[in-house]
């Protein structure tokens, strides 16, 4: 299996605290992966590194067929390369309509000059409509996204990610604060997305991870502790000690 993202030997230190310690991680082009681990295991820092927010002290992050190093690119360039990120807290542009949020995220030329003279086409509107359908917000397009419920905002953000057409989706705790029905919908969205691209889900909630039915990577103190199916890693004695045992 070819790899889309290859993280090898990455370390980051914040004020002497080693947040990521010689971490290595790989994911294929169409794969769903869950990352679990106790607080402070480095899950969010891992995402920060891949998306260019944090620069590691050592190691490399290679991307795509041509194995480009992501470490030299800016955040916006990395996003244009095809890495999409969903934050823990739903971050949508609350002052703007659902339609505008999705339109902004559509994969298009991002240069200021081109955006200034951009006029939406019928194809763009259709695409936005399809995305809204997919995330269950088709009848909310003209509403300001600030009025949406917490779960709807989470979906809108996932929809914005899909609109970017990323090859890798990094999703930070998507199910936090969701009702049971909303969780099911979210699971479907992520599974569907993973058929055509790589999806990495960081999650605390074991029940949610079980629903995803995917390979699981357990992080502990900034490096990989175990990897495999959920049942496999939950039987691992080390994992039980550091995480599940508590």
């Amino acid at each position, binding site marked *: 299996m070819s790899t889309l993202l290859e993280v090898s030997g990455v370390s980051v230190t914040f004020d002497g605290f080693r947040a990521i310690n010689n971490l290595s991680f790989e994911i294929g082009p169409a794969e769903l992966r869950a990352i679990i681990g106790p607080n402070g295991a480095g899950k969010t820092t891992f995402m920060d590194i891949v*998306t260019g*927010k944090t620069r590691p002290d050592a190691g490399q992050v290679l991307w795509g067929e041509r194995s480009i190093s992501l470490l030299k690119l*800016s*955040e*916006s*360039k990395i*996003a*244009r390369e095809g890495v*999409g*990120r969903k*934050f823990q807290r739903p*971050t*949508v*542009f*609350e*002052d*703007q309509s659902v339609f*505008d949020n999705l*339109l*902004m*995220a559509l994969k298009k030329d*991002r*240069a*200021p*000059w081109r*955006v*200034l003279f*951009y*006029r*939406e086409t*019928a194809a763009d*509107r259709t695409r936005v409509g399809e995305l809204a359908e997919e995330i269950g917000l088709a009848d909310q397009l003209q509403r*300001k996204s*600030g*009025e949406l419920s917490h779960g709807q905002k989470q979906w809108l953000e996932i929809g*914005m990610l899909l609109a*970017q057409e990323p090859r890798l989706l990094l999703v930070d705790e998507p199910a936090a604060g969701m009702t049971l029905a909303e969780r099911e919908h979210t699971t479907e969205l992520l599974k569907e997305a993973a058929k055509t691209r790589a999806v990495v889900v960081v999650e605390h909630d074991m029940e949610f991870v079980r629903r995803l039915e995917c390979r699981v990577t357990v992080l502990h103190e900034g490096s990989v502790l175990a990897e495999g199916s959920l049942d496999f890693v939950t039987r691992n004695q080390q994992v039980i000690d550091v995480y599940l045992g508590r």
Partner: protein
Amino acid sequence: MRQSFIAKNPSVLIFLALLGLFTLAVTILGEGLGIGLISTSFVKTLGKTLCLCLVAIAMDLVWGYAGILSLGHFAFFGLGGYMIGMWLMYARTELIVVESLAQAEIPPTPDEIRDAIGTQIFGVVGGSDFPLVWAFAHSLPLQLALVVLVPGLLALVFGWLAFRSRVTGVYLSILTQAMTLALALYLFQNDSGLRGNNGLSGLQNIPGAGDVPQSLMSIRFFWASAAALAIGYVVAAFVVSGKFGSVIRGIRDDEARVRFLGYSVEGYKLFVFTLTAVIAGIAGALYYPQAGIINPAEIAPIASIYLAVWVAIGGRGRLYGAVIGAGFVSLLSTWFTGGQAPDLNVGFYTVKWVDWWQVLLGLSFVLVTLFAPKGIGGLFDLLTGRRGPDRHGADLGPGAGSFREKEAEQ
């Protein structure tokens, strides 16, 4: 469902219509062409106010939409004024010098004329040679180009340095204050080449139009200011109406998110900052011929702070709010500081508005910020029954800028 630009922005048509009516009314009531109900000096005040409205639109773009609280946009305004002022002063002095030298026995050489102009202009700061910055002062087209280029380039370089280092929020505001202060202090020096604290004067006399009375000239400048404001409003509305507007409002509300969407936030900020600097420069170039004089005090930090106050009181994040704020507050300020407002006798103390106006302004700024964050423009929402979503979260918009209230009362 595709809508035209006008259909999406009905306020543009309404604004243009009102501005047209206002221009017509002033023309009819003015001294130059009409019945003379409005004095020439008041026509000039109104014309200047329109220029201030234009720079307020620039401020609204950069602050209300893109969330960059620049407290230095009057530097660009002043630079625009200086650039046009250089030509006005040079060309007019040239006319006077040529006329006086024409009486001499021997016709003067071009060098003699140039020296005489230099002595006339720079005698006040004890010099007579033209500094390098005056190299193009003889040419109107070149100086007009500089009106756009000088503020634009300064904004481009300053913005590039500041945004590239990810300076945001209050720190950026302080940096822009430092920029305008540094520029003002530099220009205060006699050897800066722009006549130090004397500034450039006599700008109301347009070279080659000596036989046009000021009453008529003031109306012409009023028209030019109204036209510039109209164009500026349409351009600004175009910039904020489409996807570009979505992106810069996104930057205002959540910069990091926009970055992770793949937009180069720094590029967008630089674009808006430079564009608004150019608009400010043009507004300044129209303002100072009507004011007649420009000196470095005009670009002191307080001027840019006033600009922010106008936009805040008018309602940031909507273009007509900026226009209303600048027009309303600056006219009111003229009234209060011009000694026309009657003193208020409260028994033990007489409130002289010339002294107390700034306190009143500072107070109303604080009150607006606290109780009516949408400003005067928010009244239109009440009229049309439009309400913002109940967002549950923190206030949107640029960082609350904790320094503003204190500064406004200075």
